């Protein structure tokens, strides 16, 4: 009896060791892919459209010089003079919106903590238009399940699940800390949200496309998590 237990233990141990050590690249890639799918389900199940990130009191903002600026272009991306936001995909009324038109829409403001994939946090106050209001304006097709955000920052982009995009704290922001959005932080318009990691929040926006199918993103296509909720 003890012998058979020992043999079973050896087999179990060996399987676990080869699985965990990831000696075989294909096996470990398959394993990580399967676990990422599992984690996506876990994150989506944990997500509540009604749970809000806590609003922080005035004065808690990170000094602007300490809030990292980030873009993938070699130089600071500059908005064209005739900048507009295109809202398209499967919508009944595709839109082309100027910044003034966006500012006339219902304004949502929030002062919340930012979570970067690298592990740092920072605080800023943001103001802008809810993505759900944009969808309403454009007449969302009920087949839409995802939304894609594109930019003039060398093609930086990302795609989201609709529930996260329609969270009350997901906005297209034109203000940061009470000022017009600074060029280093995505001027004139960026995506900002309480419920995603920083790399999901596309800056220097040009397009919002509502889609029936899931697409990827700049970092997502290189291997970062697609869901990336917080």
């Amino acid at each position, binding site marked *: 009896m*003890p012998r058979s*237990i*020992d043999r079973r*233990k050896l087999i*179990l*141990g060996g399987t*676990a*060791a080869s699985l*965990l*050590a990831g000696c075989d690249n294909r096996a470990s890639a398959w*394993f*990580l892919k399967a*676990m*990422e799918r*599992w*984690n996506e389900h876990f*994150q989506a199940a*944990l*997500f*509540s459209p009604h*749970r809000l*990130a*806590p609003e922080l009191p005035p004065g808690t903002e*990170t*000094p602007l*010089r*300490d*809030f*990292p600026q980030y873009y993938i272009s070699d130089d600071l991306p500059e908005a064209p003079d005739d900048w507009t936001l295109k809202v398209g995909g499967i919508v009944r009324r595709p839109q082309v919106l100027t910044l003034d038109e966006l500012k006339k829409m219902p304004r949502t403001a929030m002062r919340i*903590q930012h*979570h*970067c*994939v*690298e*592990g*740092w*946090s*920072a*605080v800023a106050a943001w103001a802008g238009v809810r993505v759900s209001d944009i969808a309403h304006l454009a007449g969302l097709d009920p087949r839409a399940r995802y939304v894609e955000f594109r930019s003039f920052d060398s093609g930086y982009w990302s795609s989201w699940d609709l529930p996260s995009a329609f969270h009350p704290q997901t906005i297209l922001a034109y203000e940061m800390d009470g000022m017009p959005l600074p060029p280093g932080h995505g001027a004139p318009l960026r995506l900002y949200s*309480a*419920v995603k990691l920083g790399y999901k929040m596309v800056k220097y926006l040009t397009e919002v496309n509502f889609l029936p199918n899931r697409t990827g993103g700049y*970092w997502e296509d*290189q*291997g*970062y*998590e697609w869901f990336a*909720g*917080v």
Partner: protein
Amino acid sequence: MPALEIEPLDAPPSEAGPDRRTRREQPLPIRLTHWFNVPLLVLMAASGLQIFYAYPELGPRGALYRWYPLQGVQPPSWIRFGGWLAGARHWHFALAWFLMLNGAVYLAYFFWSGEWRRRLFLPKRDAANALRMFAYYTHIARTPQPDDFYNGLQRLAYTIVIIVGIVMVLSGLAIYKPVQLHWLTMLFGGYDGARVVHFAGLCILAMFVATHLVLVAAHPRDIIKMITGGGRAALDRPS
């Protein structure tokens, strides 16, 4: 695996009949979960340090904690796993489930089987013994305390490590989901507090493992026991 009666260690030797079933010193579920822990903990620590490498600071941007002396010190490459931040995150969030599962199996068996009675640190029973054992290790006392199964210091260490393990899971979840699990994150003093706790937990676990390895090297028979299970008689008659 049938549930076995374990008597309190201070009880007189059992009067049970000759067919009374006994349990090995290190029962199979404890041995299995112990050895599964080895690769899992190593890979979790190494992928965690690869994640930490991306921002080897404690505290929020613009307000780093002054008390942390190693701000910006990056963990060296030999101690990291996952290749880059994205890879390390995939490994960390994948293996975390298996480590939690392993811990849950261990704890379920630990309490269901009654093993906790001879392993958990119970202050009334173990505090004095732990103190005298500490005196022995620090050369204040010359002879070690006699122990029943484990001495007080061992029980204290193994109990602390169980608690740290639970804190690691909770602080890890608090960092992973600071908005969805906001109440949990607040319990650790916020997102950056949870990072401190998670990192401190890693340091405590590393110190435990280092001590464990030194002591086990000094008592190689305990390694054999953790493989074979050891004798069966020790349960009822503490030596």
